[in-house]
Structure formats: structure tokens, C-alpha cells
């Protein structure tokens, strides 16, 4: 459909595609969302240092593992973007399946972690720690879930044969931006929420 491609015929004064620009803006805004969540957590943590002892509950092994998995999914995401640019459909699909699979493992770990913590007595209503911890990591989990939903839709769409490198590479690239961002946010959370607890 040349029509669709030419639809975006507005010259871009900034040489950045509209879709990419709007994603960058969204990510900028999303930084503020996570910024607010993470600061709330840190503020209460500092205010009530003895309210809760997270090191007893956190399993550094498990969370390091899921962090590693998420990092690797980002790597696969980069591969699928590059495959799409080259028009290598097969390789694109293979890599996207990988991203989805790793994303699901990450979510699985999170679900396990949540149930385990809840079992051990950390509920959303447990002081301020439970509140901030679950809302923050939960919001991140929802981001991952939305990303997985997005990629699964793309996978199905590519199955329909309508996906073409020249017009859809940008869509994949934008999804990639989102995925990498969600990954980076997790690294921040992993550092300031998990790792730091074990240093002191």
C-alpha cells in the first residue's frame, strides 16, 4: 500500500519519524511516573529504616536471575529490530518469540516473588514498605505485560503476511524503544530497591 506509506508524507522538520518522537516523549513522561514511585519508596524507607527488614525476604539469586533474563530479552529485541530492518522475517519472528518467552519468565519470577512474599507476611497493607514495594514493582510488571501483549500482537500480524520491512520496521523499532526502556527502569529498581539493601 503505497498510499499508507505516502500518508506520512509530511516532511519531518526534525528528521525523526513521528512515531519514534512520540515514543521518546512517552518515555520521558514515563520517567516521571517511575521517578515518583521510586522516590516514594525511598522516602518511606529512609523515614522508617526499621519498619521492615527486606534482606530477610529478598532472594538476591532469584532477582539477579530475572534481571539477567530481562537483559537478555533486550538483546533479542535489538536483534529482532535489526532483522526487521533487513527484511528477514523468519529471523525477526524467531527473535520476537525469544523476547516474549524471556519476558514471560521475568513475569513468572515476579508472580512467584509476590506470592512468596505475601506468604511470608509482606502484604500491600504491611506498613509503608509493602505499599510502596508492590505498587512500584507492580507498575513495572504491568509495563512488561503490556510489552508482551504488544509483541504478541506483532507476531500475529507478521503471520498475516501484511508486515513489510519498509513500512513496519519503524513500528518494531518503536516497540523496541519501549522494551529497552522498561528494561532500564528495572535495572534502576533492582539497584536502588534490592541491591542497596544488601550493602548496608
Amino acid at each position, binding site marked *: 500500500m503505497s*498510499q*499508507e506509506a*505516502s*500518508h506520512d*508524507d*509530511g*516532511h*519531518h*522538520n*526534525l528528521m*525523526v519519524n*513521528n512515531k519514534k*518522537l*512520540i515514543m521518546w*516523549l*512517552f518515555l*520521558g*513522561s*514515563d520517567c*516521571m*511516573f517511575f*521517578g*515518583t*514511585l521510586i522516590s*516514594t519508596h525511598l*522516602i*518511606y524507607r529512609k*523515614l*522508617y529504616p526499621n*519498619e521492615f527488614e527486606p534482606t530477610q525476604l529478598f532472594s538476591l539469586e532469584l532477582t539477579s536471575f530475572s534481571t539477567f533474563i530481562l537483559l537478555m530479552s533486550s538483546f533479542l529485541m535489538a536483534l529482532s529490530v535489526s532483522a526487521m530492518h533487513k527484511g528477514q522475517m523468519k529471523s525477526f519472528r524467531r527473535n520476537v518469540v525469544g523476547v516474549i518467552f524471556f519476558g514471560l519468565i521475568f513475569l513468572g519470577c515476579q508472580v512467584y516473588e509476590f506470592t512468596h512474599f505475601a506468604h511470608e507476611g509482606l502484604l*500491600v*497493607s504491611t*506498613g*509503608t514498605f*509493602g*505499599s*510502596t514495594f*508492590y*505498587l512500584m514493582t507492580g*507498575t513495572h510488571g504491568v509495563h512488561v505485560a503490556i510489552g508482551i501483549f504488544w509483541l504478541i*500482537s506483532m507476531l500475529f*500480524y507478521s503471520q498475516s503476511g*501484511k508486515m513489510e520491512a519498509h513500512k513496519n520496521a519503524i513500528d518494531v523499532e518503536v516497540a523496541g524503544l519501549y522494551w529497552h526502556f522498561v528494561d532500564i527502569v528495572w535495572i534502576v529498581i533492582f539497584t536502588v530497591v534490592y541491591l542497596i539493601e544488601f550493602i548496608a
Partner: protein
Amino acid sequence: MSTKITDIPSTLQQSDLNQLKPEKSDIGLTRPDHSKNVFIDWLTTVDHKKIGLMYGTLALFFLLVGGVEALVIRTQLAVPENNLVSAQMYNQLFTMHGTTMIFLAIMPLNAAFFNFLVPLQIGARDVAFPRINAFSLWSFVAGALVINFGWLLQALEAFGLFSASGPTAGMNDFVPAMGWFGYAPLTSKEFTGAGTDFWIMGLQILGVASISASFNFIVTIINMRAPGLKMMRLPVFTWMTLIVSLLIIFAFPAITIALAQLMFDRVFGTNFFSVAGGGQPILWQHLFWIFGHPEVYILVLPAMGIVSEVLPTFSKKPLFGYSIVVFSGAVIGFLGFAVWSHHMFTTGLGKIATAAFSLLTMAIAVPTGVKIFNWVGTLWGGRVRFQAPMIFALGFVWMFMMGGFSGIMHSSAPADAQQQDSYFVIAHFHYVAIGGILLAIISGIYYWLPKMIGKMWQGNLNLWVAVMTVVGLNITFFPMHFLGLLGMPRRYHTYLSGFGWETYNMVCTIGSYILGLGVALLVVDIILCFRSKKPAGNDPWDARTLEWATSSPPKVYNFAKTPIVNARDALWADKYGPESRKLGAMDEAHGIHMPSQSWMPLIASLGFIPLGLGLSLMQAGVPYAGYAAIFGLVTITFGISLWAIEGPGGYHLHPKEAVEEA
């Protein structure tokens, strides 16, 4: 109104004509393009001009709603120990008055101007993402419904048809009653009922609308300018739209998260703000004002943009110090993020923090003052024409300054300790909100409505509107300075006699009726304009910017040919400038691409209604409300998915004008 086929010259090739037939989308449904049915056409529209008009109409309606609420408040306060409304009802009235005016009247009125004007001012055919734009509009409608839904429940309750039984049983405040800034812990489940839930969900939905619209405008302004329209040639109104949009995407997240935390406190028993579980109510104040102060600039910067367009046109002079006006707008936007704690001077922040926020607040008055000088400089030596838009723009400069003065007064923390929570603060922000923003918006209406509907104002009702609003607002709000300094606290539903407040209050109330009458006359004048027989013509005011270069009302495609801009005040230079500065036109042999209309934005946004109502009613113990919420979520997902799959589509147009000129 869809495009007429008659726009197509007969020399057109058959292949081009085919594209005008309603096309099937990628999901196999016929796209609602070129519909003869007016309802379908408006409900599925992606045209920024129609979206702008709908925003404007709804916002004017809510301006009247908020106005009636205000008049009831003032009537209650006219005399001491009045009991026109109960204390509870009074709380609901001031809460809904503030919330309505800020989120449902002024913000969408600004959005109406953004929508209608920005693509025209930058010589574009539409915004960058037309369907997202429609989504913003309908989400705004959904949010407005959810926030106001409590009135219905309250009416039902009055007739004995409804009562709360859930976690907030026994609390019959179905309309929000905790103030527009919703301070914790008043918002917790122990103190307020379903009204707070409607407020949380409604604001959350309105936030989605504002943030998504802002993404769209930033991309549009950055990426879709006509050739030659460099950033420093942009009309100031477009500049202010850009800055405001940036403020929105960075300021709204703070309140979105705060509202989410509050919702979790209420629904899932978390302890973000609940004191018993260790929560700190002051955290809410910080998060709210980190959003709230940028918000006041989100409200006022577009007004400054409007005035910066009107003053040069009616002085027949370029804006004095264009780059300084733009730059000080940006500085205001930036500093706006660093002064939030001036709303919290009396909470005991500590000496250093208080001093720092006090200084920064004083600093923010500097770029504001600079702008005032620029506006006055624009008038200086100009050939000033006192036509309706100009009268209101001049009113803005003068009245806004009054609000700025009281603002600087309470930027000093010790002074603010006296003024905080008194009528002095009410006087301050109504001078900036009505004297500033509303007057500028009225000025914008008088200036641009002829462009929007193609008809020219008749008669001189506008003078009456001007006199009534300006006189009314001064009679209403000037005495409030004294009331505040005499110690009258805000938000009390009545007062005793003997404090020396009686006369002032009576005067305020009389003034508010004059002001109300002024706004009512404005509405009458707008209706008269719609019925006017006098055509506006392309450029009724001898104006300066690109939107006046095209027809009134503009065609769906805005410009038959994309203009090429060679000067800052593009149209002015075209009319009176040297040859090298005149407007050019792009040669677009392939015709104009128009985006297809779509149902999906509407469907996705409507999902917010069951989601918002469901979550709120769950609290009031309405059976199956949770399912409604899930249904809403599914609808949103469904709408967005189909939206992605259906593809943007689009069709070609070959307007006659373009073909004839070629």
C-alpha cells in the same frame, strides 16, 4: 460535513477517484469516511477543527456549570449564618467548582484553541496523530462524566432510591467534598465516601486525555511545520502550546501516581497516606503541588499566547521582543517545577527549604513581569484599534498584573503565614484565573470564532460583556483581599457577624452576579454570532499569522497547497512585506492526503466510563460494579487493538482551488 465530491475536477484519473470511495479498513470494516450522517461524521471525526469545536462547546458548558456552583457558594455567603445549603453541600460545591473550572472548563478551552489553531498556524493539514487526538477528546468526555456522576447518585439518594452499603457505607457524600487539592487524610476511606472515588477516577481519566493530547501537539509542532517555518518564526500561541504540552507530560505523572496511591489506599488498604499505617499525609501535599504549580502555568501560558497574538494584530505592530516573550515563557515553564512548596509554607518545611522556595517564587515573577513589559511595548506607538478581542486582551494585561502582585506578596513566607487559607489567596488566584485566563480566553473567542465558523460578530454586545466581566470580577474579588487580611478563612460554609466581614461579603456576592451576567451575555453573543449572516472572509482583522491566509471556516484540508513561509508574521509579510518575504505554495501534484475517520478512538475512550464508575461504585457496595470495571478495561483493550489493526487508511483530495491555480 464531509468533503464534497464536487471538489474533484473532472480531469481526474479514475484511479484517484477510486480512493474516494469509502475504503475498507484492514479489519474488513468500511471506514466511516464521507458519511452523510452528521452524528456518525462527528463521532468518528479525526479533523482537528471539529475536535477543537467540540472541546470548546463542552468546555463552555462546564464553565456555566462551574459558574452556577460559584453563584450558589456566593449566595450562601452573602449574609452571616445563612443556611441556604448545608455544610456538607457547601463542601461539595466548592470542591466541584474548583475541579470543574480547572479541569473541565479552562484546560479544555485551552485545548479547543490548541486543536483548532496549531495545525493552521503551522501550515499543516492536521495533527501528527489524528486518531489519538480524537481519543483525547472522548477521554475528556468520559472523565467529565465520571467526576460528575455523583450528582446523579446524590439525587437518587434524596429520593430514597440509592444508599451506599460497601466499604464507605453510611457516607452519603457521593459528590466529592474534600477540596480540589484533595488533601490527605481527608480523602481516606474513614472520612469521605464514593465522591472521593469518582474524583480520583475522573481525574485519572482526564490525565490520560491531557497527556495523550500533549504528546500529539509536541510531535505536531516539532515535526509538521510548513517549509520555511523555523522555530523562531512560530506564532507565539504555538510556542506556548509547545511549552504547555511539555509541562503537562512532565507534571501530570506526579498526580497520576499520587492518585493511584490514594486509590490503592482506599481500595486495597495500602498505607501511602493513612496515618495509622505510618503513611505521611504531607507526601500527598508534595506530590499534588509538584503537579499543581506547573498546572497553574499550564492554565495561564496559553492565555499569554492568545494575548501575544491579539495585541500585535490590533496595534498593527509586530510583537515587541518576540524572542524574549518566547524565552520567558520557557523560563516560566522551567521554574514552575521548582516552586511547589510555596503552597506549603505553613507546614514547617524548615528554614532553608522555606527560604529557597520563597526566593524561587519571587524569581518566577521576573519572566512574568518581562512579558508584561513586552505587551506594553507592543502597544507603544502602535495604531491601536479598540475592537472586541483587543478590549479583552488589554483587560487581561491589567487584571493579570493585579493577580501577580498578590502572588508576589505571598511569595514571602512570613507574609504568607498570614494569608494562607484565607480569602486573600482566593482573591489572588481569581485575579489570575478570571482576570487573566478567562479574559484572555474571551479575547481568543472574539478573535478566532469568525475563523472557526466563517461568520462575523454583529452588534456591540461585546462591550457589555467586557464591562460586566471586568467590573464584576473586581467587585467580587477585590474586597476578598481585605476579607483575607481581616482573617476570614476560606472554605467555611458560614460565619458569624461582628468580625467586620458582613459588608465585604455582601459586596462580593453582588459582584459575582454581575460577573455571572457578563458570562451569560458572552454565551448570548456567541449564539448571535452563529446566527449572523455577515461572512467573516479570510482575514477580517487584518491579522498577521498563517491561519488567516485560508478560508473561514477552513476546508477539511486547511490549505489547498502547503504554504512556504518566508517570514515570522507570515501573512503580514505576505500582505505588506517585500517580495522575498511573501508566502509561497508547494506543488503537490499527487493531491492531498487526508486521514481516515475511525470509530476506535471513541470506543476505546468510552471504556473509561464503566472502568471509572465501576471502581468507584465498588466502594459504595453496588453489586457487580467490579464486573463493570473489568468490562471497561476489556473495551479499552479491544478498541486500541482494533485501532492498531485497522491501519491509518486515508484518501486523496484534489481541491479545485489547487487545480485551478496550477
